[in-house]
């Protein structure tokens, strides 16, 4: 009799624990790659989300290794393992669509984050509009040089969605200053070393003519700064801007060498996670991240919106110390 009791008790315990495991929401995050600082901050922010910390959500992050096919295979894995929702930052706008399709076929909601995907099947998207940052950074450069003089543009890898949108924004700002001449406009592939070489050569080709540098990301702006220093010129006599707000750039802003526009990886990640949980629980959920109170311009709206635009934050002498404190 006693033996029966023990068996029964352990069986109930087993059932209960498996029932509990089922209650736990399984969410997969598929970022395009984890080699660069931005996506590392993004992935870390997911782990720090209150729902993950409390154990309500079981989160798995898949490193897409900058390969559309790898990401597609990871989606297959998540579909087979019956994930409740997926957060997706695709490497490519078009190649990501097939992955979204496979999840939609299995009835799994997909929330886009950071990078866009050409698919109507995306449940929601949380990101920042790159045309706006492109406009903002060019505007700070043009304002500093007084809407006259010469600038150079360091572009991202041609064809990538961020490069296309940021260039569009750059051009919009430049159109407002018809007296400003774009002396050079080339890709440095987001790379500091490549930008440094380009800028060295441009400083030679246009001696004392370059007034401003529009870098489509911080890395390239930092490369330009190194080239200017190496040429023995005064960095502060140039107007230089970048985008992203990486740690090195924050230090350069603090030193008065450039301006940067912060893209809030944390808000993009945690916003997407709140939406993913919301969809997985079929609407029975209140967002837990503090980002919804930080950004009044991006209301939660009961999780109904198709697109959530996380605002860009210009990094200034006033807020740079506070931002640096968040980077350990």
């Amino acid at each position: 009799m006693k033996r029966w009791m023990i068996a029964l008790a352990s069986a109930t315990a087993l059932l209960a624990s498996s029932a509990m495991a089922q209650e736990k929401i399984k969410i997969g995050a598929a970022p395009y790659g984890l080699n660069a600082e931005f996506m590392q901050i993004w992935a870390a922010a997911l782990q720090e989300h209150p729902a993950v910390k409390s154990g309500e959500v079981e989160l798995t992050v898949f490193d897409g290794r900058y390969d559309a096919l790898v990401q597609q295979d990871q989606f297959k894995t998540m579909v087979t393992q019956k994930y409740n929702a997926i957060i997706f930052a695709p490497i490519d706008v078009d190649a990501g669509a097939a992955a979204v399709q496979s999840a939609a076929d299995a009835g799994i909601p997909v929330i886009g984050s950071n990078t866009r995907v050409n698919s109507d099947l995306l449940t929601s998207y949380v990101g920042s509009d790159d045309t706006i940052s492109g406009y903002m950074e060019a505007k700070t450069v043009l304002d500093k040089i007084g809407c006259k003089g010469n600038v150079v543009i360091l572009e991202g890898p041609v064809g990538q969605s961020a490069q296309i949108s940021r260039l569009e924004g750059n051009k919009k700002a430049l159109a407002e200053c018809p007296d400003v001449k774009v002396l050079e406009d080339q890709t440095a592939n987001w790379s500091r070393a490549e930008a440094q070489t380009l800028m060295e050569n441009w400083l030679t080709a246009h001696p004392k003519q370059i007034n401003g540098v529009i870098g489509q990301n911080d890395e390239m702006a930092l490369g330009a700064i190194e080239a200017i220093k190496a040429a023995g010129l005064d960095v502060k006599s140039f107007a230089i801007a970048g985008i992203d707000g990486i740690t090195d750039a924050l230090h350069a802003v603090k030193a008065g060498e450039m301006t940067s526009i912060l893209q809030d990886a944390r808000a993009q990640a945690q916003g997407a996670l709140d939406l993913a949980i919301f969809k997985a629980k079929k609407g029975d959920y209140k967002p837990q991240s503090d980002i919804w109170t930080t950004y009044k311009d991006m209301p939660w709206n009961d999780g109904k919106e198709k697109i959530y635009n996380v605002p860009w934050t210009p990094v200034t002498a006033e807020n740079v110390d506070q931002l640096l404190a968040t980077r350990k």
Partner: protein
Amino acid sequence: MPNHSSTFQPEPGQGVRSMAEEPVMSVGDDKKAKGWLGSEQRRLLVQEYGIFLAFLILVAVLSVSNEFFLTAGNISNVLLQTSINGVLAIGMTFVILTRGIDLSVGSVVALAGIVSASFVTSSATAGISGAPYPVALGLGIGLLVGIACGAVSGLIVSRFSVPAFVTTLGMLSAARGLTLIYGGGRPVPALTPAFRWIGTGDVFGIPAPVIILAIVFAVSWWILNRTRFGRYIYAVGGNPHAARTSGINITRIQFVVYVISGGLAGFAGMLLSARTGSALPQAGIAYELDAIAAVVIGGTSLSGGVGRVTGTLIGALIIGVMNNGLDLMGIQSYYQQVLKGALIVGAVMLDQKRNYGA
């Protein structure tokens, strides 16, 4: 210093090679011998100094078409921009001369760069505890990391007879992974000014990296042309079986060339981080391709045993001058890639013509 063809004046390396030559090669040599009966001077010029001529023509064209090209500041820039690829390409020359290849140098650049940087950063969080340490320690560590990577590749190639392509392809992946693990995928910023001197300093106006490249070149030239070890490298690449029969320890030679390539890649990694001011985990991606390009453009044969380090230096300079010149003229970088491709293939075509006659 003509040391390309075994029918020409024997350089130290060539003596061993022709001695070690197998009959198979004599077919090509016969054809070549016929060619020499023609306009000897012209052929000599094109074949032995073709790449040097090409370099001079390129410089002449750019000097005429751009007023800034031949200024002191720009010459200094070109040399500076060539220094890292030059150092890598010289290391690659040693490996290719033994019929090997080292695909891992780009990843070793990143690994040595980030490990050494963690010793010489003044950032409170990115470095190892107690950083910044003296520059000499950082340089020593970076060099050691490069040498260690080279030693692993060299050991596997020479002892276990795994093809160099496969071994160093594995190292390319592994070293990049180690770079990301070591730095947690984050850059190591704020390198001390003393460390940065190797990338940004100068001696009497000559940039430090250019002086370093000159030293690396001079030592390598001496090793390859004036030492027994250098002769053995040519012998092993020219004909490994004959080299072994003549009592050369080819295992050791093969091992050492990868150590040299790895060590120089480690050094190049520190030059790069010293130049950019921050060691990045994504640094050096695809650098191996430019290094191989410089070696090939410089006339070193991928089938081993033939080539010279002077050619490699000129090959690296051609790539540097071409990129710089096209930048100065405001030509899109896409064209630079097309031209570089044409140059690589063209150089090998010239090489084929040299080896097998027209």
